[in-house]
C-alpha cells in the first residue's frame, strides 16, 4: 500500500481555518450583542455562511489545481504528552472539500429560507446564532486533520443540535426529544473515544496519516475492535440501527433545523467517519460485513416504518434513516462503492433538504399541522411548493433521469455484486427498499397535494413568501439535475482519496439491475397512487398486524422500554420511592437501569459512623488479604 502523505497548505488554502472562523464569529456576535442585534441578526447569520460558501468554492478551485490534492494545516499544539503530540490541525482534501461545499451551499439556502420561516418567532436572533454555531461545528468535524479534531467537532455538533432541537422550549416534546438525541449520542460517543484510545494504545497517534499508514501493522483483533467502535460511533450520529429512535423524535425542532441537521449534514457525519476511515474498514472483512448488515437492515427498517406514518415530518425522518442506510451499505461494500456512498449523500443532501423545506412550507400554510390525513388538494393553492416537492419526489424514488437514479441504482448494483449468498441478500434488501421508498414517498406526495381536500375547518392555505420559495426552487433544480451532473466528476474527484473506481461485476449486470429497479419503483409508486388517489380516512383505522407493527416503529420503542427502561424502573421503584418533584423521573432507559443500581447501592449509605467505619475496616482487610495472596503466589 502506498504511504499516505498530506501536503502542507499554501496560498489560499492556508486560509482554510477561516471557513470555520466565519460562522463561529457570526454565532459569537449574535449571542453577545443581545437584543440590539434582533433587527439585523438574521442577515448577519446568512452573510457569514454565504461568505463561507464563497471561500469554500475558492478553496475547492485552488485544491483542484494541486497535484497532491491535499492541504494540511497545523494551527497549534493542543496536547503534548511525552512523545505523543496532538495538534489542532485541519485537512482539506477532496473528501472534506465536497462536504464543505455541501454544508455551506445547502446550509446557505436553508439559512435564507429560515429568515422567512422564523420571521414571526421572537427568538429568531438566538436561532440564527445556534444555526451558525452548528455550521461552524460541522465544518470542524469534516475539516479536522486528526481523529481528535473530528471528535471535537463531533461533540460540538451534538451540543448545537441539542440546542436547536430544544429551541422551542415551550414544547415539552421538543425538550424530551432534545434530551433523547443527546443521551443516545453520548452512548455512541463512548465508541468514538474508545476507538481513539485504541489508536493511541496500538499506534501511538490519532493523526489520519499516522493511523492509516500504520493500520496494516494492526493485529486482526485490534482492527476488528477499532472498526466496530468507529461503527458504533457512526451509527449513533447517523441514526442507524440500533440507535435509530432518536432521529424521528428530533423532528420536534423547527423545520429548517430538520432540513439542515437531520437531512443534509449532521446525520451524514457517520458516513463521513466511515469514508474517512476507509482504510481501517477495508482491513477487516468482518467489519465490512457488519457495516453492510447495519446499512441493509436500517434501510429496510426505515422504509417499512415510513410507510405507516401519518406525520409529514416523521415520514421524511424515517426516509432519512432509510436513505442513510443506503449510504452505509455503499461504504460498507468498500472498494469503488465508497465514492457511490458519498455521491448518494450529496444528492440526498439536495433532495431531502428540499423535501423538508417543502414540508415546512406546507406546515406554514396549514397552521403548523403535520397530519397528512388532513391535507389533500394543495397543488392548486401552493404551486411553487408543489413543483419543488415534485422534483424531490422523483429524485428520491430514483426515476430516470433524476438524481436518485444516478446515485441509488449503482449502490443496488454494487450490493448484488457482493460474493455468494450475501450478494443476493443485500441486493434483495436494497431492491425491496427502493420499492418501499417509491411506495411511501408516493403516498406522502399524493395525500399531501392531490385527492380531495380533508382540511380541518380553520385552515386557509396560501403559498409561502418568495424568501422561502426561492431556496426551494434552487434545491428543486438541484434534486432534478445534480445526480446526472455529478456522477462522473465527483467519482473522479474522489479518486485520490478512495482509489480507482472499478465497475462491479456480480450476480446481475448493471443493465439488468437498472431495469428491475425501475420496474419495482414504478410498481411501488403506481400501487400507492392507486390506493391513495381518492384520499384516505381522516383518522387511522384499526389495521392488520404488519401495519400496527410499523406504526409502532417496528418495536424500536418497545424494545427500548422493555429491555432498558422497565427493569430499570422496577428496580428503582423497589428500592426507594421516587421523589415526585424530582428531576422529571428518569429520562431514558439506560439511565433508568443505572439509576436502579444506583438506588440499591445507596441503601448502603446509612449515615451511621459505625457502618462507615466497618466499611473502611473491611476494605482494609480486603487490601491486606489481596496483598497476602500475592505473597503466597
Amino acid at each position: 500500500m502506498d504511504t499516505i502523505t498530506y501536503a502542507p497548505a499554501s496560498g489560499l488554502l492556508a486560509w482554510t481555518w477561516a471557513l470555520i472562523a466565519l460562522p463561529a464569529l457570526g454565532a459569537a456576535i449574535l449571542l453577545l450583542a443581545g437584543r440590539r442585534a434582533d433587527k439585523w441578526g438574521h442577515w448577519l447569520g446568512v452573510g457569514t455562511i454565504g461568505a463561507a460558501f464563497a471561500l469554500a468554492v475558492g478553496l475547492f478551485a485552488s485544491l483542484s489545481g494541486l497535484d497532491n490534492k491535499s492541504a494540511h494545516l497545523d494551527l497549534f499544539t493542543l496536547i503534548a504528552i511525552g512523545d505523543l503530540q496532538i495538534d489542532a490541525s485541519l485537512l482539506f482534501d477532496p473528501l472534506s472539500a465536497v462536504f464543505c461545499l455541501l454544508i455551506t451551499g445547502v446550509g446557505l439556502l436553508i439559512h435564507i429560507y429560515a429568515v422567512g420561516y422564523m420571521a414571526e418567532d421572537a427568538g429568531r436572533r438566538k436561532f440564527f446564532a445556534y444555526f451558525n454555531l452548528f455550521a461552524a461545528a460541522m465544518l470542524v468535524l469534516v475539516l479536522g486533520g486528526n481523529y481528535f479534531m473530528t471528535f471535537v467537532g463531533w461533540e460540538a455538533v451534538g451540543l448545537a443540535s441539542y440546542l436547536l432541537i430544544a429551541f422551542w422550549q415551550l414544547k415539552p416534546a421538543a425538550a424530551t426529544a432534545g434530551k433523547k438525541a443527546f443521551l443516545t449520542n453520548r452512548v455512541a460517543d463512548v465508541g468514538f473515544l474508545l476507538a481513539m484510545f485504541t489508536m493511541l494504545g496500538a499506534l501511538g497517534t490519532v493523526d489520519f496519516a499516522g493511523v492509516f499508514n500504520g493500520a496494516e501493522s494492526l493485529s486482526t483483533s485490534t482492527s476488528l475492535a477499532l472498526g466496530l467502535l468507529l461503527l458504533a460511533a457512526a451509527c449513533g450520529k447517523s441514526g442507524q440501527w440500533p440507535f435509530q429512535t432518536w432521529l424521528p423524535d428530533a423532528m420536534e425542532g423547527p423545520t429548517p433545523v430538520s432540513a439542515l441537521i437531520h437531512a443534509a449534514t449532521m446525520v451524514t457525519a457517520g458516513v463521513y467517519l466511515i469514508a474517512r476511515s476507509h482504510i481501517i474498514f477495508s482491513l477487516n472483512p468482518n467489519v465490512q460485513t457488519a457495516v453492510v448488515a447495519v446499512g441493509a437492515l436500517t434501510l429496510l427498517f426505515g422504509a417499512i416504518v415510513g410507510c405507516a406514518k401519518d406525520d409529514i415530518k416523521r415520514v421524511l425522518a424515517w426516509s432519512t434513516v432509510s436513505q442513510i442506510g443506503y449510504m452505509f451499505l455503499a461504504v460498507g461494500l468498500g472498494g469503488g462503492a465508497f465514492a457511490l456512498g458519498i455521491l448518494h449523500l450529496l444528492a440526498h443532501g439536495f433532495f431531502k433538504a428540499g423535501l423538508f423545506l417543502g414540508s415546512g412550507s406546507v406546515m406554514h400554510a396549514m397552521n403548523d399541522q403535520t397530519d397528512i390525513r388532513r391535507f389533500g388538494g394543495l397543488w392548486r393553492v401552493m404551486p411553487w411548493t408543489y413543483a419543488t416537492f415534485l422534483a424531490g419526489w422523483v429524485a428520491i424514488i430514483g426515476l430516470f433521469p433524476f438524481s436518485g437514479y444516478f446515485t441509488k441504482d449503482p449502490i443496488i448494483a454494487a450490493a448484488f455484486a457482493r460474493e455468494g449468498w450475501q450478494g443476493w441478500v443485500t441486493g434483495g434488501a436494497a431492491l425491496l427498499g427502493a420499492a418501499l421508498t417509491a411506495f411511501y414517498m408516493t403516498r406522502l406526495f399524493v395525500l399531501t397535494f392531490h385527492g380531495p381536500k380533508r382540511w380541518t375547518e380553520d385552515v386557509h392555505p396560501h403559498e409561502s413568501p418568495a424568501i422561502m420559495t426561492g431556496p426551494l426552487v434552487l434545491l428543486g433544480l438541484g434534486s432534478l439535475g445534480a445526480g446526472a451532473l455529478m456522477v462522473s466528476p465527483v467519482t473522479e474527484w474522489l479518486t485520490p482519496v478512495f482509489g480507482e473506481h472499478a465497475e462491479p461485476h456480480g450476480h446481475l449486470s448493471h443493465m439488468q439491475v437498472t431495469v428491475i429497479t425501475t420496474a419495482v419503483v414504478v410498481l411501488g409508486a403506481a400501487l400507492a397512487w392507486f390506493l391513495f388517489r381518492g384520499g384516505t380516512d381522516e383518522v387511522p383505522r384499526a389495521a392488520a398486524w404488519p401495519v400496527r407493527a410499523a406504526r409502532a416503529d417496528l418495536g424500536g420503542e418497545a424494545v427500548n422500554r422493555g429491555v432498558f427502561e422497565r427493569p430499570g424502573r422496577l428496580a428503582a421503584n423497589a428500592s426507594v420511592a421516587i421523589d415526585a418533584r424530582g428531576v422529571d423521573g428518569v429520562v431514558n432507559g439506560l439511565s433508568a437501569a443505572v439509576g436502579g443500581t444506583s438506588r440499591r447501592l445507596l441503601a448502603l449509605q446509612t449515615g451511621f459512623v459505625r457502618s462507615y467505619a466497618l466499611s473502611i475496616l473491611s476494605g482494609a482487610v480486603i487490601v491486606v488479604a489481596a496483598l497476602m495472596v500475592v505473597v503466597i503466589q
Partner: protein
Amino acid sequence: MNEALQIDWGGLAPLIIVFAAAFGGLLVEAAVPKAVRLYVQVGLAVAALAAAFVTVTVLLLGDKQTTAFSIEGTAIGSVVLDGPGLFLQATIAILAIVAVLLLAERRTTRGGDFVAEAAVVADSAADIQQRRSDGATEIFPLTLFAVGGMMMFVTAGDLLTMFVALEMLSLPLYLLCGLAKRRRLISQEAALKYFLLGAFASAFYVYGMAMLYGFAGTVDLAGINQAGISSGQPRLFLYIGVAMLAVALLFKAGAVPFHMWTPDVYTGAPTPVTALMAACVKVAAFGGLLRVFNVGLASSAWDWHLILTVIAVATMLGGAIFAVTQRNIKRLLAYSSIANAGYLLVGVIALGEAVGQTMFYLAAYGFTVIAAFAVVSLVRDGDEEATHLSRWAGLGKNSPGTAVVVTILMLALAGLPFTSGFAAKFSLFAAALQADELGLVIVGVVSSAILAFPYLRVVVLLWLNEPAPDAPTVNLPSPMAGTVVAAGVVATLFLGLFPGYLLDIVDQASIFLNT
C-alpha cells in the same frame, strides 16, 4: 550534634509564610478591633497565600530539585523541593486564595455562613440569637493552618513528616466542618463523623508506618524504596505496611470503599469549606499518593498493582453510578468527586508516565469544582441554600447569567470538549495508555460516560423546565463569590481551549527527586 545542618530557607519560604500568617491571624483576633477584623484577616490570608504562590512559582521556574535540609552535603529527605512538590504547592496556594474569598463572602446571607460561637448548643435560644450576628473570623487562621499542612504534605519526603502534615491539615478541617450557621446539627454531625473516621484512618497510617519501618529500618521514602529491593526482612511487613498506608491515604482521597464519609461531610459542612476540601484537600491527598507510590513503593509496584487497580475500578464505577440518582447538588458533586478520585488513581497507578497529567487534572478539576460550590452558595431560598435540584428548574429563565455559568461548569464536570474537564481526562487517559493500562482506560471512559448523565440532566433542568412560582433567588452581585465563580469559569475555559500551556509546565515538573 548539629555539626553542619544546612537549611534552604528560600525553599522553605512558602511554608514559612503561610504558617507565619496563620499565627499572625491568631494575634489579629486578640489585637484588632472587631469592626475591621474581617478585612484584616482576609487581607492577611490572601496576601500570605499570594506571596507563597509567587515564591513557589519562582522556585518552580528555577527548576529547583533539592531537599530543604542537608548535613554536610548529604540530603535529608524530610522536606523535598522537587517539580511535583512545588507544582502542587503552587496549585494548593492558588486554589486556597479562591477558597478564602469564598469563605469571606458575607453578602449572600447576613454575617456569612459561619457561626459566631461554635460552643453554643444548637437550636437553643442563644443559638437562634447568634444567627443574626457576624460569623467568627477565626476561620481564616484555621484555614491557613490547614493549607500550610497541605503544602507540607505534598513535599514531605518521609513518612513521619507526612504524618505531621496530615494531622496539621486534618484537625482544622474537622473544626471548620462544624461551624455552619444554618442546619447546625447536620454540620456538627458531619464534623464528628469526619473526625472519628479521620482518626480511624490516621491509626491505620501510623500502624502502616510502623510496619514499613520494621521492614526498611527507615521512614524515608527513598530508603523504603531501596529496601523493597534489598531488605532481608520478611516481605510480610512490607505488604501490611503498604496496605495500611494505602488505606489511610485513600481515605483522604475518598476512594471506594473508604469514601462513605464524603457525601455526608460535603453536604453537612458549610459550602465554602466543602469547596476547600473538594479542591485543595484533593490536591494534597493525591500529591501524597503520587509521592508515596512513585518514590517509596515503585520497587514493589508488582505487589500492589492488582489491588490498587481493583480499587480504582470500584471507585470510578461506584462514584459514577451513585451520582446518577442524586437529587441534591452537593451530594451530586460529592459522588462525582469520588468518581474523579478514581480517574486520578489511574494516574497514580500509571506511575512515572502520568505524574504530569495527574497534576494537570488536579489543577483543572480544582478550579471547576470550587466554582461549582461557589454557585451552590449563590442560589438561595431565603436564607438557606437551595441544594435540592428540583429547586434549580428553570433557572435559565430567571437568571440566565448564572445558568450559563452553571452550564459551563456542568459541561466541564461531564467532560465535554472545549472544557478543562475533557482536556484533563483525555490527557490523563492517553498517558495511562502509554503505561499500558488499557483496561483502566476503558473503565474510565465508560464511567465518565455514566457520570455525564447527571450533569447533563442539571443542564436540561436549568434551561428546559419551567421555574417553580417560588423559585429561589440568585444573590448577585456578591463581589467575593462572584470573583470565585469568574476565576473558576475562566480557568475552566482556558484550560479547555489551550491546555498546551499548562501541560508543558506539568511536563517539565513531573520528575520526583529520588533521595
